[in-house]
Structure formats: C-alpha cells, structure tokens
C-alpha cells in the first residue's frame, strides 16, 4: 500500500544483473519536497538502484511506484513526472546546445521555451557556447548540458546519478542551491552522490547502499563517503 502523499514508494526492491543481486533490499518512501541522498562504495550498487527506480532496468524483485504508478519509462505519465540524468554522453551531432534544450522544452510543452532555454544557458554558463554542436564542448560543458536538460523540464521526481561529476566547485554549489530550490517548490529528488558537501546541503535523508541497505541522516551519509 503506497504511503499517502508519497511521490516515490520503493518496497523490498532487489536490484542486480542476471539474477544476482548487487546489494541488499531497498525500501524507502519519498514525499514531495524531500531529497533522498544515495551513497556507498564504488560498485556497491548505487547507480543500479537509481537506474531501477528510473525504470531503466528491471528489478529482480520488489516494486517501485511513482505517484502510485509502477515505474515504467514506456508510460507517458511516468515520463511526464520523472526526470532522470545519468552519465549518457549522447547528443545529436548536428544540433546545437540551444537546439538540444529547445527540443526538451518543446517536448514538455513548456509555455515559453526560448525564455526557459535562455535561463538555463545562463545558469549553467553556456551562453557563449549556445550555438555550437556538442562535439565542440568540453566534457564538463557536456555534463552541464545534460543537467540543464534534466533540470529545466517540469517533474515531480528527479533522479540524478552523481551530478557533481566533471563540474567545478562553483557549479557544484550552484547545483546544490538549484536542487534545494527544486525541493522547496515541491519536487522530490533522488541524488546519488560521492560529494559530502552536496549531500549535506541538499538531502533530507540518506540511504547507504551495501549488503544491507540502511537509512541514515545526511551527516552520517557524508561521513560514510569520507570513510570510503
């Protein structure tokens, strides 16, 4: 039974490959305005958990539901509610940075797509690179573009897999403020991270992924990262 008001409900979720689990069972519930940090050692299964929650991988057992509906990226309702940013470095080779963002804005029927794109370009420091193709971007700029695409669109649940990767410290701070603002506006976030500062400044609760998955405070999660 889904908890009343829960955006994300994960029940006895077992994730892994070819039938073999990579970590312990995950059970967690996330309400609107909450940010769930996910931490753990390399190979612990953090990204696998995030991918399964995002419906990109079938669970071995258990269930994931978003606003009462099963996680299924083939369902239009799920796609409308869930934004996911993983490390997929794939772009249209002949579309510019601005055109990539415009595509997302128009695809989500945003009211003023051009204005929204301009705002994202400014936030992520990509104004000067707006009219170049992704091939001409640095790896950090491509990461910013992916994050801009994920953050600009409307969503009730955002899933981010190590968003701090390839970002400079200033951008990490800006990202932390942005995510905190998203949560304050009623969005829920699942944040897989190796950055203790990002975790403590954004997360309201934290999962430590291991053979046994435990729910801890963000400060305890940050100390887990520091020990790893």
């Amino acid at each position, binding site marked *: 039974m889904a908890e009343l008001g829960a955006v994300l409900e994960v029940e006895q979720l077992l994730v892994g490959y070819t039938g073999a689990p990579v970590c312990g069972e995950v059970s967690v519930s996330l309400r609107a305005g909450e940010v769930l940090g996910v931490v753990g050692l390399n190979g612990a299964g953090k990204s696998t958990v995030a991918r399964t929650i995002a419906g990109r991988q079938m669970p071995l057992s258990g269930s994931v539901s978003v606003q009462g509906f099963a996680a299924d*990226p*083939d369902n239009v309702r799920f796609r409308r509610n869930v934004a996911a940013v993983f490390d997929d470095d794939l772009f*249209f080779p002949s579309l510019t940075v601005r055109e990539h963002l415009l595509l997302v804005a128009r*695809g989500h029927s945003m009211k003023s797509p051009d204005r929204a794109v301009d705002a994202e370009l400014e936030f992520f420091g990509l104004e000067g690179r707006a009219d170049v193709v992704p091939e001409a971007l640095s790896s950090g700029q491509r990461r910013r573009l992916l994050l801009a695409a994920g953050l600009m669109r409307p969503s009730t649940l955002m899933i981010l897999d190590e968003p701090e990767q390839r970002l400079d410290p200033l951008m990490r701070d800006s990202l932390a403020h942005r995510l905190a603002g998203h949560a304050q506006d009623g969005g829920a976030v699942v944040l897989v991270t190796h950055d203790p500062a990002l975790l403590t400044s954004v997360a309201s609760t934290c999962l430590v992924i291991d053979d046994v998955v435990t729910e801890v405070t963000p400060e305890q999660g940050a100390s887990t990262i520091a020990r790893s």
Partner: protein
Amino acid sequence: MQGAEATTLPSGDETRSTRDLSADITAFTQRSSRRYNRARTSLKDLFTDLYSYGLALGCAIALAASMVMTVKDALPGRGEAGSLRISDHWPTIPAPALWTLTVYAALTTVMILARRMGPITVQGAEGQWWLPLPVDRRPMVLPAFLRRCILLGLASAAAFMPFSVLTSAELTLPAHLLGSATFGAVAVVSVGLAGWMQLEPINPRPGRLAGAVALIPCAVLPSLTNSPWALTVAAVSAAVLLCAVASRTGQVRGADLIRGGAVAGHARSSFFFMDTNELLRALHGDRPIGSAHRAAGFYTRPVQGPVAALFRADIVAFLRLQGSLALPLLWLGIVVAVLFVDKSLPALAQIGVIAIAGCATTSSTGTVARRTALVPGLDAILPVSPLWVRCSRAIMPALVMILWMTCLTGILVLLGAAPPALILLGALAGIGMGAGAVRGATRPVSDWSVPPVETPFGPIPQAQIGSLLRGLDFTVLALAPALVSLYAGDVHPAAIIIQALFSAGALGVVIRRSP
C-alpha cells in the same frame, strides 16, 4: 512485461496532441540537422559523393551480371560433370522443393536478422533525447521503419534476380522480373513479421515460431511466375501487415528501440568496413548469456599449473558463450538436402555447398576467440607462453569441427558417396578447420590506407582482401583433401597423409604465429 500492456498512452484528444507534438519534435530535429549539414556541405562534395555511389553501384551491378551470365553459360554442361554418387535406394527431393526450401531459408534469415536489428529502432541520440519526452513515439520511429522496409524490399528483389536467372534458366525476362518483385514483397512481409514480434503480442519463442510458420506460404509465391496473382497476394499481405504494425509502432518498448538501433548501427559500420568479426560480434553481442553458470562445477575443480587452468578456462568459456547447436545442424541439413535433390546439381556445386557449410560452421565456433581478441591483455594475466594461449583457444573449435566433420562424412559414407575411410579424413580435417576458426577470429582490421595493387585485371585491393580471407584460407585448405576424395569417390591412402599434414600445418601455423 509485454509491450502492448507496458505502454499506457493517453487517449482521445491528448493522444492526438502528443502525436502532433512528437511529429513537431521529429521535424524540428531533422530540420536543424539538415540546416547544419547543408551549411557544411558544398555542391562539389555532394556531386563527388553521388558520383562515387553511382559508380560503385554500377560496378557492383556489372560484376554481378557478368558473374551470373558466366555461371549460366557454364550450367548447360553440368550433366557431363555428373553429381556425387549417392546410392539409388535413398529417396530424392524434387528440385522445386529444394528451390522453395532455399527461398524459405532466405526469408527466415531476413526475419531473424531484422528482429535482431529491430526492425523498429531509434539511434543513440534519439534514444537519449526523444524517448524520455512525454509524447507518442510513433512519429519518431514510423518513417524510418517504413523507409527500411521499402529499401529492403528493393534490395531483396535485386538480389533475387541472379538466383532466379541461375536456377530457372527456362523463364523469360518478364517472369524473372515478376518472381523478383514477388520475392521483394515477401521479404517486406518478413520484416513486417519481425516488427510484429517486436510488439510482443505473445512470448518471443512462440512468436518466432508463428513467424516461421507464416513464412511457409510466402516461400511458394516467388515460384508462381505464370500469373501476376502471386505478386498481388504478396504485395497485399505486405501492405496489410505493415499497416497493422505501423499503427502500433509507438508501443514498442523504449529499451528494445535503443537495443535494436545499437545493433543495427554496429552491424552497418562493420559491414561498411568489411569487418566480418565485428559484424558477428554486432549480431550476437546483445543476446543475453543464458548459461552463465554452465560447467561451474568443472571450473572450480583444482588444476595443476597455469596451462591446465588456461585450458579449463577456455573450455568453460566456450561452453558458456557458444550459441545453440541449431546452426551446425542446419548446415548439416542443407548439405544433406543438396545431396538428395533429384535433378542433381553438378558435383562441383555440391562440393561448393559443403565447403560453404564447413566455412560457416567453422566461423560459428570462433566466438570465444573473437571475444578474447578484443582484450589482448587478458591472455597476459597467466604466466604462460602465447603459444599455449593460442593452442588453448583452438582446442574447443577443433573438437567441435572434428565432431561436425565426422557427422558429415559419416552421412556421406552412409549415402554411399565414399568409402568409410572418408570419416577418418573428415575428423582430421576438423583439426585444421578449428585452427582456421582461431585464425579468422584474430583477423586484423583491414588497412584502408594501403593502395590497391595493379594487376592485368585492373587494380585489386590485395591487403584488404587478404585480411578478409584470413581464416577462410586455412579452413578451405584443411577441407581440400577430404573434398577431393569425395569428388573422386575414393580415399587414397596418400590422401590421409596429405590431410594429416594439412591439418597439422594449419594448427602449427596458428599456434606459432602471433595474430
């Protein structure tokens, strides 16, 4: 979860609006791409590209036509060559039945390959940027799917023409054209069936079986060249099937759209660079390993020394990665069918089919060698000589080919085509063929910077052809003594010695020479 159930589309006006939005997004992407490409392509480049493609196509057609006419002219004399001597008490397969079986095999191959490569797909960037949008996916995938069907239909019709000319010399040109057009239409039916399977209306295995059954009547249609009804039936079937699939293309699972696109892209680039190993990796790479725990008990048993450990690892890897027995058995069946056909093929053609079957089966045993060739560092982990590594890699292909050749030559002996000594010859040939499998799997990538070599017959890309034939050379060489004995209908004692020398030589070269 089945695709039809997995996808929940909004209904009514919302569906129409998300479909329109999806069409807008697709058009926007294409328009932007075209503008970018046009800005970077000059008329001169365009003309050069068109000229090169036109010239290459013209050369290919001229070469194919010339080869077909040469073979056609040589065929009337086939009665003089005779066929392999099969005992009279065995039943025979009528030639039209073999012809239909061949067409059926071609259609089934088209269906299987189409399913492996989609056929409804998106490319990498489309999967990343289009699929997460909350819109109907049909406008994103349908135009490319229909384009693919039309191109495949045209290519299949063109490819059928030489087959028709060679196997039905008595037909007129309009009849050949009609047969080719019908085959093109039923090839589209094959792709349509693959698209239907992608919608997962039933589980994959029964789906494949249903598709294979549906292709049986399709295989008969290209032979009915005396009236246009066959073409009409094939064209209507293709159109109806495509309409049914097209209306639901938006319901194909996103993961399958991305998977199919990745396989098709990988296969296309391998084909373009004529890298057959990469092509096989592309077509087999996405298949789930259903036997990850096979021979686990055997693998965990203690071993003495690194060489034994390496041998065991190679054996276990082979048992886990090797595909099913279907392919070797299918090729055995094809050889037997060719031997049984009543209006017998010339002996040389029958031996050619056996050689092709041998090469195809040999190539299929190189899976482990092909995979390990990608990670040369893996072989350096154990403190053993590279010589032992190559020897270990050849063990299982050689064993499988010994078994396959023993079965094949056993059947030939049973049919009375040669004395029992042919079985010994076949088993010996299997050793050399196993070596050929490893040599082919470690084929270096063609160096396209090497210019063609001038010959009296014109420039020949010798380096590229050399790379392409690597592996096949040893397989054919190892098969040669057995095939010559089969052609002669007798096994001379010297043939056994020659066969042993050829096979030992092939194995020796593969083991001693680094790729």
